[in-house]
């Protein structure tokens, strides 16, 4: 089957979700939509189970941090409909004080580690996740290293200081 045109995809989503899902853009023909955490699981379930769309494949879950935004922490889902070869990107933004979002592990088993990685790097709390622990970093780490305020290197280290040239 051929790729679903983005207009059809937008219409199918708008019919079902009205204004709770907004279209952000179509960079490089990949439809990007934004929604809130109240609708994210409904949206994912709809995209996965709808007989015409069948976005059965979860390509990726990851996060992003925009410190200057009102809702700085983003969670980004990439879905892929293998039968129609269509991709879609879904974004959910969360407030810094309340980084809770429902888990997608009930829909895809593969979401487990992807969400753990997002938690580990960005501190997003996936409610209902069966095993939300750090995955790449050590368990007793307190910071979330992919947030923008976390420095790449310890600014206090002295071993790389050069007497003449500074750092």
């Amino acid at each position, binding site marked *: 089957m051929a790729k679903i045109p983005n207009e059809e995809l937008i219409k199918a989503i708008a019919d079902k979700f009205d204004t709770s899902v907004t279209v952000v853009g179509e960079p*490089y023909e990949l439809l990007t939509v934004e929604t809130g955490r109240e609708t994210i699981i409904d949206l994912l379930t709809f995209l996965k189970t709808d007989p015409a769309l069948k976005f059965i494949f979860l390509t990726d879950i990851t996060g992003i941090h925009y410190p200057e935004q009102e809702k700085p922490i983003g969670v*980004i889902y*990439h879905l892929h409909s293998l039968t129609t070869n269509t991709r879609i990107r879904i974004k959910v933004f969360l407030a810094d004080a309340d980084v809770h979002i429902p888990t997608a592990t009930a829909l895809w088993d*593969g979401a487990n580690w992807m969400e753990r990685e997002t938690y580990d790097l960005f501190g997003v709390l996936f409610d209902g996740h069966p095993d939300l622990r750090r995955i790449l970093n050590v*368990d007793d780490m307190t910071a979330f*290293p992919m947030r923008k305020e976390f420095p790449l290197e310890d600014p206090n280290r002295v071993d790389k200081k050069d007497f003449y040239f500074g750092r």
Partner: protein
Amino acid sequence: MQNHPVYTDNDPQSELSTLNLGPTHPATHGVFQNVLQLDGERIVSGVSTIGYIHRAFEKIAEHRPFYQITPLTDRLNYCSSPINNMGWHMTVEKLLNIQTPKRVDYLRVIVMELARIADHIICNGVLGVDTGAFTGFLYMMEHREAIYEIYEEVCGSRLTTNIGRIGGFERNFNSRAFDKLRAFLKNFPKTLKEFESLFNRNRIFVDRTRDVAAVSAETALSYSWTGPLLRAAGVDYDVRAMNPYSSYEDFEFEVPVGDNGDVYSRFLVRNEEMWQSLRIIEQALAKLDKEPSDIFHADVPEFYLPPKEEVYNNMEALIYHFKIVMGEIPTPKTEVYHSVEGANGELGFYLVNDGGRSPYRLHFRRPSFINYQMYAPMSRGMLLSDAIINMSSLNVIAGELDA
């Protein structure tokens, strides 16, 4: 260890024994730790711990210009670095709307398919070693060395290759590279055939691998498996065929699929993929004859570093050199997802750009990371010796697992 399910369950009266498989264990071929609960030889439950070689590549990438991220991608799947390099170049080219000449595409296809063969040689060879047959591995390794020598001619290095630049290659392929490539195409099929006759109908090997760790297509899809593992489970998803990049649409090749996703069908799928890769390389060589032999990069002076002689003798080249190095060339403020068929599955690059010299955010969709998460759940009820074979046929590369 807080909240660690296995450590809190260490009841001395229990009949079960706990085994630390890894982090350094000769049978795991890398730093993977699995804490297993064993009932005799049978695995009752397991917990995977990963992250032993986490190097924060995504964080480092936010502080580096685009062209300096290529060496980071080398160190993801270091058994097939050129695929990662090319995937990264193509992601940036997609972001910048750079069209590469056909000759560059075909040269890239050659390098990528060589990398796929090198990776599958290791995986299938090691699978043989883990089932007790060292010979096949020994025979095949000779040809991985031949592939590495081709890399050496192309880029000067062997394992972490850093082949190519954004827009093409840093230099043209020399004649020795093509000579070695032709020699490889002549010699390798014989060995591969021999390798197949050693294993494919070998009673011991088949008994050890058939129906071990069988995975249904539904489970594989639910766990987001890609690559040879998904295809062994019977789903014909191959990025090269579905979303052709680098002119893969010009080539004829089959996408082999297995029937029940067990270790044996993964082995067969990988073997068949090597044959298909050889086919693709031969077609690419034939196509290269029709292309002008002096083109090895796209004409994008804003992003492709000029040769040093020109920098010193030519004003435009000096200006471009300066602008590229200082990162003064504007890039589009947008986001892009590009994926290539890595040796282990869909290797994706999600790049969010804010117009600066380095990515605002770069995420690698690493197939090993996503494939490996089924390992502990699927080991339940398995014999320990089968779990070892299962791990080698998953072909998890530690660098790609931990990023």
